C-alpha cells in the first residue's frame, strides 16, 4: 500500500500498517523529517491528568466540540479524546522524551480553550520531537520512503483507487505506484494564502487529488487563523509565534498598552480559542489601536529571561535573529496568520476511509474532528490517533483485495498535463500566478469575509484558472521548482475555489468563519456541513447533516447548563438537508 505524505499522520499510518503486515511505501515531497509537522511548537493535547488530575477524556471531548462549534464529527472527537493519551505514551516508546514533572511523568502546559493543563510538550519544539521519533521508528522498521517525489493523480479502476502517478522531483522522471490502498496524509493548504505559517508544501495537493478522483471535501470554508504570527520585518510576515507563549503566561496588549483580551473574553483571556483571539486582534487594529505594523504586542517580559529561554527557546532565537527583537526585554509584534485547514477529505471516523474504496485520509488532509475551529495541540494528537487508525484500516483492507489494474489513459492524460508548462508557448509565470492567487485569497477570503469580497475573490480565482493553462516554465524537468509550482498551482486553484464557494454559502459567523454581513450564528446552518465535490471538473457544493451525538455524550453538555453559549443544537430537531446551487 501507499502512504502519501511523511508528516505525523503519514508516518504513524505507515508504522501501523507495517505492523499489521502490509508492505508499505511512503512518498514525500521533501526530504524525510522536513514535513510541516516539524513546525508544530506548542504541544500534543492529551488528557493524561498528570498536572491537573481532574482532567479526563470527557472534558477533552467537550472542549474539542465546543471549540469546533458543534459542527465536528462527534465520533472523531470522542475517539480522539479517548485515545490520544495512549498515542502519546506510545511515542515515548519510539524514543521521544517530553518535558517532565518533578516525579518523572510527562509535564503538561495550558493552552487556548483547554479547560485543564493538557499539552505534552518539549520546550517549543514538540513537532520536531514527534517527527524525529516517528522517523526513527520508520527507519527501525525498514519502511521504504521515497523522498522528493510528488504525486499528482490518483489512478482508479472504476470507483476504486488502485495507485497514484506523479514525478520524481530530482530528475523529473515520471513514477507510478500500483497499490491496493492509498492513504492521503498530505496536510493542509495554507499556501493558498499570502500570510501563512505554512511551508511551500501546504498546497492542498492530496486533498485536491482526492477531489479530482471523486472524493468529497468537507468544510473547506473553515480555515484557521492563528492569532499570533510574526508581523515585521516583511520577510518573516506570517511565521508562527507559538500559542505556548500565551500558555506560559504571555499576554496581549494594544498600542495603548491595554490588555484587550480582558474585555473580549474575561474568563479565558489570552487563552480563549484561536478564532476569538484572532478576531480580537483584528478588531483592535481596525479600531486604530494596532501596533506600528498593524498587529498587537505579545509580552512575556514578566516571565523573566531564564524561563523564557528555557520554555520558549526557539521563539527567543527566532525574534532575536530575524526581527532584532530580544523578547526578554521587548514585546513581540504579532498578527493573525493562516495556519490550519479544518476542512479536508470526508472520512469515516473509525477508519479514515474516504468516500472512495481504497482511499484513506488522515491528519490535516482529513476533516471532521475540528469542526469550525481547532484547538491548539489537537492537531498533533489528531495525527497520531487517526494516522494509526487509517494505517490499521488500510492494512486490513489490503489483506482482503488484490491489486487493481492501471488504466494507461489516466497515466498519459496526467503526463500531458504535467508536460504542458514546459512545451506550451504560453507566457504566464507560475510564481506570479501563485502570488496573485494568494493575494486574492488574502483580500477576499481572509479573516473577515463578506459576500462581496468572496464573490470578487471567486472571479479572480476563475480568471487565474484560465490563465493557469498558459503557464510556461523554462528549463528541463531536472529539479525545476518552476515546473513543480505550475502543477501545485492547479491544486491550489481547486482548493481555493472550494473554500470560497463554501464560504459564500455559509451565511453565518461560526468559529473561524467570520462573515461581516452575517455576524450571528444561524442555528439551521449549525446542523450542516458543506461538502465540495467534483462534477465534470467543476466544483459543486452540497450540504450534509452534522452527525447526531448520542444522548450519553450530549448529556455531558447539558450538565454545564442550558444557558451556556456553546451548547450543541437540540438533538431532536430534524437536520436540514438543503441542496445548494452553485
Amino acid at each position: 500500500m501507499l502512504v502519501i505524505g511523511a508528516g505525523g499522520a503519514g508516518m504513524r499510518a505507515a508504522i501501523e500498517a507495517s505492523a499489521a503486515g502490509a508492505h508499505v511505501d511512503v512518498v514525500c515531497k521533501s526530504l524525510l523529517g522536513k514535513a510541516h509537522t516539524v513546525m508544530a511548537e506548542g504541544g500534543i493535547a492529551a488528557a493524561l491528568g498528570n498536572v491537573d488530575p481532574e482532567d479526563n477524556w470527557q472534558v477533552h471531548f467537550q472542549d474539542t466540540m465546543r471549540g469546533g462549534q458543534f459542527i465536528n464529527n462527534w465520533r472523531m472527537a470522542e475517539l480522539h479524546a479517548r485515545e490520544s493519551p495512549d498515542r502519546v505514551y506510545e511515542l515515548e516508546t519510539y524514543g521521544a522524551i517530553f518535558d517532565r514533572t518533578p516525579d518523572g511523568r510527562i509535564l503538561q502546559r495550558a493552552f487556548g480553550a483547554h479547560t485543564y493543563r493538557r499539552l505534552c510538550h518539549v520546550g517549543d519544539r514538540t513537532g520536531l520531537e514527534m517527527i524525529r521519533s516517528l522517523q526513527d521508528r520508520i527507519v527501525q522498521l525498514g519502511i521504504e520512503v521515497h523522498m522528493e517525489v510528488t504525486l499528482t493523480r490518483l489512478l482508479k479502476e472504476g470507483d476504486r483507487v488502485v495507485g497514484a502517478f506523479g514525478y520524481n522531483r530530482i530528475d523529473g522522471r515520471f513514477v507510478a505506484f500500483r497499490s491496493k490502498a492509498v492513504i492521503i496524509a498530505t496536510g493542509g493548504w495554507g499556501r493558498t494564502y499570502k500570510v501563512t505559517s505554512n511551508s511551500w508544501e501546504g498546497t492542498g495537493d492530496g486533498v485536491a487529488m482526492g477531489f479530482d478522483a471523486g472524493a468529497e471535501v468537507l468544510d473547506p470554508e473553515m480555515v484557521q487563523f492563528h492569532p499570533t504570527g510574526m508581523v515585521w520585518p516583511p520577510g518573516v510576515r506570517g511565521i508562527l509565534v507559538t500559542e505556548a507563549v500565551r500558555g506560559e503566561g504571555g499576554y496581549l496588549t494594544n498600542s495603548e498598552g491595554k490588555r484587550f483580551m480582558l474585555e473580549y473574553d474575561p474568563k479565558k483571556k489570552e487563552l480563549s480559542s484561536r478564532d476569538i483571539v484572532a478576531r480580537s486582534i483584528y478588531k483592535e487594529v481596525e479600531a486604530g489601536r494596532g501596533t506600528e505594523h498593524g498587529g498587537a504586542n505579545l509580552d512575556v517580559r514578566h516571565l523573566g529571561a531564564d524561563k523564557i529561554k528555557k520554555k520558549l527557546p526557539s521563539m527567543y532565537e527566532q525574534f532575536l535573529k530575524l526581527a532584532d527583537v530580544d523578547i526578554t526585554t521587548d514585546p513581540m509584534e504579532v498578527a493573525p496568520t493562516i495556519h490550519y485547514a479544518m476542512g479536508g477529505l470526508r472520512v469515516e471516523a473509525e477508519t479514515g476511509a474516504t468516500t472512495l474504496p481504497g482511499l484513506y485520509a488522515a491528519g490535516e488532509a482529513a476533516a471532521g474532528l475540528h469542526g469550525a475551529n481547532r484547538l491548539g495541540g489537537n492537531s498533533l494528537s489528531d495525527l497520531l490517533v487517526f494516522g494509526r487508525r487509517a494505517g490499521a484500516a488500510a492494512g486490513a483492507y489490503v489483506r482482503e483485495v488484490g491489486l487493481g489494474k492501471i488504466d494507461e489513459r489516466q497515466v498519459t492524460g496526467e503526463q500531458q498535463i504535467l508536460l504542458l508548462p514546459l512545451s506550451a508557448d504560453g507566457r504566464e509565470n507560475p510564481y506570479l500566478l501563485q502570488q496573485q492567487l494568494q493575494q486574492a485569497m488574502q483580500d477576499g477570503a481572509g479573516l473577515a469575509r463578506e459576500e462581496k469580497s468572496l464573490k470578487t475573490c471567486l472571479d479572480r480565482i476563475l480568471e487565474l484558472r484560465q490563465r493557469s493553462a498558459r503557464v510556461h516554465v523554462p528549463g528541463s524537468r531536472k529539479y525545476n521548482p518552476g515546473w513543480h509550482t505550475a502543477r501545485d498551482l492547479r491544486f491550489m486553484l481547486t482548493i481555493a475555489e472550494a473554500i470560497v464557494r463554501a464560504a459564500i454559502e455559509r451565511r453565518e459567523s461560526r468559529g473561524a468563519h467570520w462573515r461581516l454581513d452575517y455576524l450571528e450564528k444561524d442555528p439551521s446552518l449549525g446542523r450542516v456541513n458543506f461538502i465540495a465535490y467534483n462534477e465534470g471538473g467543476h466544483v459543486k457544493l452540497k450540504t450534509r447533516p452534522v452527525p447526531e451525538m448520542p444522548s450519553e455524550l450530549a448529556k455531558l453538555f447539558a450538565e454545564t447548563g442550558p444557558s451556556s453559549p456553546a451548547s450543541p443544537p437540540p438533538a431532536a430537531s430534524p437536520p436540514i438537508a438543503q441542496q445548494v446551487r452553485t
Partner: protein
Amino acid sequence: MSTKSPSPLAGEGRGGGSGSPLVLQIFRGETNSGAEQRFEVPVVEGMVVLDAVHYVQANFANDLACRWNCKAAKCGSCSAEINGRPRLMCKTRVDEFGDREIHVGPMRAFPLIKDLVTDVSWNYEVNKQIPGFTPAANEPVPYRMLPEDTERVYEYRKCIECFLCQDVCHVLRNHDDKSAYYGPRYMVRIAALEMHPLDTRKRTSLLHGKAGIGMCNITKCCQEVCPEHIKITDNAIIPLKERTATDVYDPVTRIARKLLPSRAGQPSESPDGLAGATAPQRFAVKDVVRLKSRGRRFARVASVLPDGKLEVWVLHMNGQVQHWAGPKIVRTSDVTNNYGPLDEVGIGGKLVEQYITEDHAAEQHG
C-alpha cells in the same frame, strides 16, 4: 533594473545605504559543471538570503533549484554555503553583509544535483545503520523518567538535520572519505540514544568500528556552524570518545565497571554525580527503581539509609523466573528512576517463582 521599488524603509540604517539593490551571485549548474550567475534584488527590511533567492526564482530564473520548507530555521532544508560558510539561508540576514556581494553556493561535501541542491541521501543511509532506541522489554509504560536524567538529552534532540556539520567536517569534506566516519550529525544521534535514560543498548563497538569516531580530531568546526547551537564536539563527540575508549581500550575498567556497578573509582563521570547530588529523589521502602549501571536492572528499595543511600534488591531475570539479589548499597545518583511502589508497578505480579538470594559478590565495595 525594472523591478518593484523596495519599501521606503529598505536598507535604512543598514549597510545597504540608499536602497541600492543587493547583488547576489548564485551558483548555477548541474552535476559536474557550473558557474556563478549575477542577480540584482531589491532589498526589503529584515530580508534573509532565502527571500532573495525566492525573488530571483520568481522573477528571473523560474527553474533555479533550491530546497526549503519552513523558512523559520526549524526544518533544516535550506542549507547552503553563503560567502563560503555553511549556513541556513532562512536564518542569514542580507544586511549583515553590508554592501558586499553575497555568494550563494551548494554544500560542497555532497554531490551536486542542480544549482543549490545536493544529494544528501548518504546521510539517510548512515542513519539506517545505527541501532535505534531499545528500551527494556519489560519497561512499564507510561515511562517514568526524572527531569535531571532527561535534561542532557534535549540538546542532542534539538538537531534539525540540516547537515551543515556534515558539510564542514574535514573528514567528510576534504578527504571525501565517507566510508570511514559517520560524521558529527550521527555522533549527535548516537549520543542521544546512548544517554537516553531508558535505552539498554551499547553502541561503543559501532562507534569504534564502522562509525569511525576515532577519525574526529576535535577541531570543533561542526559545533561552530550548528544553527541549533548544539555543542557537538564538547557534549556529544568527546563524551562518546571517552565511553568508547573505556569500553574498547581499557578492559580493566570495563571489568571493574561490571563488578562495581555503583561506580566507585570513576570520579571522572562527574555529570552524573552532580545531577545526583541535587536530585530531588523521594524513595520509600518497596519502591521500584532502575539502576544506571550496566544492564540497567530494576531493583526494589529495601531501606533508605540515614546517609541517603539506598539498600536495594536487584532484579535478575532468568526466563520467566525473577531473582531478587542483594542486599546492595547504592547512591541515589546511581538510580535513574523511581517507578513507585512495587504493588502498583506490578513487577512480581506475574511471578512464576521467586528466589531471594544472598549475593555478596563485590557488592559491598559500594
